[in-house]
């Protein structure tokens, strides 16, 4: 084949330009840390990249939901603990008062302490997580118990238990609050008021305080109330156990999410991030080729026969 100067120049230009293209690609990879800049460079990486990124963001969001749920449940648990303690103290006081040697003035002192404890339970029922009342179903913007009404109810032996609730009736079925903690998996975070602060609790306590107030009450009458208090206490423990089980489940979900987060991020990184050592090696080898092309061009294009003619 006949080779001319124009061909040499063109070949050189073509190879230099393709060499620059390769170097530019490697440079972009090194600077961005990503294997591809455009979807067409590797369609599979691009498609999966979208999916993996979504997955990472989803896991991130679910972990946020879990942490919200955990703080809600922690608060629920601590208030339920206080309620249990209060009921326990009331039981102690009742046992004390059931002693027939106690006179009415002494019982009155006990009653006032019991009343204080009941009011405390009432205020615990109005606990708030942030701006949310946690024991009023989905009506998180309203308190469950009207504390003033509760006081009036305790003072009035003929009072109706419905009156102490802000809504005017004892809660029957109130809304469950559920958070999504994994794709399609929801966990109920609230304890419904009918199970923990239902009318049984307040009616039982109301009966007790009325008995304590009544001078004709015999010790045996009060002893009979101990059973009611035991039932109430037992109920609270059952509810706390239920809550504990849920918290446990949440913890497992959280652990799994943590693992998932690491896996998702690893997969995402494997898919789209560069292997730096490999790319640097690639850069080195392309650099060598590029330098060779430049020096070959300089050597071949420059001289012509003219240089050697006298």
């Amino acid at each position, binding site marked *: 084949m006949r*080779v001319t100067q124009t*061909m040499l120049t063109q070949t050189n230009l073509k190879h230099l330009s393709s060499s620059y293209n390769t170097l530019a690609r490697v440079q972009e990879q090194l600077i961005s840390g990503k294997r591809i800049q455009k979807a*067409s460079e590797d369609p599979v990486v691009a*498609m999966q*990249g979208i999916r993996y*990124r*979504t997955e990472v*963001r989803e896991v991130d969001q679910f972990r946020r939901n879990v942490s919200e749920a955990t703080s809600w449940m922690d608060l629920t648990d601590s208030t339920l603990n206080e309620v249990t303690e209060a009921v326990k103290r009331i039981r102690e006081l009742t046992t004390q008062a059931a002693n027939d040697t106690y006179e009415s003035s002494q019982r009155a002192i006990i009653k006032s302490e019991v009343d204080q404890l009941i009011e405390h339970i009432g205020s615990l029922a109005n606990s708030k997580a942030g701006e949310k009342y946690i024991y009023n179903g989905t*009506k998180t913007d309203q308190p469950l118990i009207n504390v003033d009404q509760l006081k009036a109810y305790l003072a009035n032996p003929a009072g109706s238990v419905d009156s102490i609730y802000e809504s005017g009736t004892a809660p029957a079925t109130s809304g469950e609050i559920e958070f999504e903690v994994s794709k399609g998996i929801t966990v109920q975070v609230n304890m419904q008021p009918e199970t923990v602060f239902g009318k049984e609790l307040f009616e039982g306590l109301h009966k007790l305080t009325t008995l304590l107030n009544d001078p004709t009450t015999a010790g045996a009458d009060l002893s009979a109330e101990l059973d009611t208090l035991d039932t109430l206490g037992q109920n609270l423990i059952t509810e706390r156990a239920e809550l504990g089980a849920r918290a446990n489940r949440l913890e497992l979900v959280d652990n799994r999410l943590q693992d998932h987060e690491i896996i998702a991020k690893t997969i995402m990184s494997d898919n789209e991030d560069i292997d730096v050592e490999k790319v640097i090696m690639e850069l080195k080898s392309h650099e060598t080729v590029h330098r060779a092309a430049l020096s070959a061009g300089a050597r071949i294009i420059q001289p012509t026969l003219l240089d050697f003619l006298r």
Partner: protein
Amino acid sequence: MGSTFMGLETARRSLSTHQWALQATGNNVANASNPGYSRQRLTLGMTEQLSVNFGGTKAGQFGTGVRGETLARIRDLMIDQQYRDESVKNAFYATKEAAFGRMEDIINEPSENGLAKSLDLFWASLQDLSVNPDDTGARSVVRQRALTLAQTFNYMSSSLTKVQDDLKTEAGVVTKKINDLLTKISDVNRQIGDAEPLGVLPNELYDERDRYMDELSQYIEFERVPVDYTNGETRGNSQRVAEGRIDIRVVVGGTEVKLVDGLTGGVGKFDGMTMTDAAGTNTSMTHADMPNGKWKALVEMYGSATGPEAIDGAFTNMLKDLDEMANVFASAFNVAHGTNMDADGNAGRTDFFVGTTSAATITVNPDFMKNLDLIAASKDGNIGDGSGALELAQLKESALNFAGSVTTSTSIGKYYQNVIGNMAVEASQNANLAKSTFALLSSSDQRRLSVSAVSLDEEMTMMIQYQHAYNAAARNITAVDEMLDKIINGMGVVGR
């Protein structure tokens, strides 16, 4: 015996022929960097021979010198044809590659600011709202993220439309260039037709015509059909190697359309989807029988939805897919939103997103911009219930019925992945084809250069050869001169 001055005439012919040969060489050197230039050679031929009788039966034929026969360009028309075939293909794929590149820039996936990210952020804000339905902050984030999602659709749609318009404009420019080149080729054709009968080879005109055809070969696929001397006849004193006038013909759906008619000098017109031949007959094209090349690539990329160019162009399809995604998702969202209760316990409105029919117009209802309470996150009407928001969030995962470039029932995220995947595969195929056709194009260009390009070393050698021949001829004249001097001035003076 020959004439006394025969030697002088022979040497004179040599002097002048070599001067012309050197002139041709000089012209080659001068045009060494001229891209469309084919090197020229003066072919030398002997002048009439002279029979000389040496006496008896001995005789010899003496040459009487040299003359230039033809000054022809050195070119292989077959390689030209190969070059133009590759040029058509390369222009087609390279144009598509470039257009897909602009599409990818706009779509910008995978990245931290594409549509997928906006969708994920919107989903996350709904999740946050489901956890904190009473929080006005969470509500306002939902609203802003919804707006971002809508604006991402708007931005992508308007940018794609802009590029689509640019491509259409470019196709128009290409049409103009095609017509311009056809006129130029026809002009050169006429000049060639005028010059050849005089017995000359209009090399510059041949080169010029080939340059125009090279340029034309980027835009459309055509056939170069010579129309003179097809049966060995001559026109006037035209030389055997004369190329003659040519037709430029384009095949559309099996019929040949003469865009340049060499014999009549007529020029046709290439006008979008219609071609007018040199005689003025119109032939309309459909997508299936468009000539290959840059023009076809541009039409395939912008492919408008209506009109004679009604084909599924890549940009048309992408816009259709975006419209479909915006419409299906926003409509499903609106319906789901309507089944919820807002913060004031009223039934949710079914117009959270408005202008849903197109990705270009979708936005968040301005009423929601004024009143955050309208966002319906609750199922039972109480503020603390976030299950409605959760349902809205889960819409991202639920199967919706899409009928864009593919009809399928899948989640919006998967559908989008599909769209991106299809685009990426098509773009990478075009990029690969552009690369391989470019390799073929440059290899045929190399072969062409190998035949036609000027080699300086070669010219230098020829120059030396011609120069020495010229010098030798001059010396010959001197020799004859001295010979004649001897005869004329030196003879018959014995004893003077």
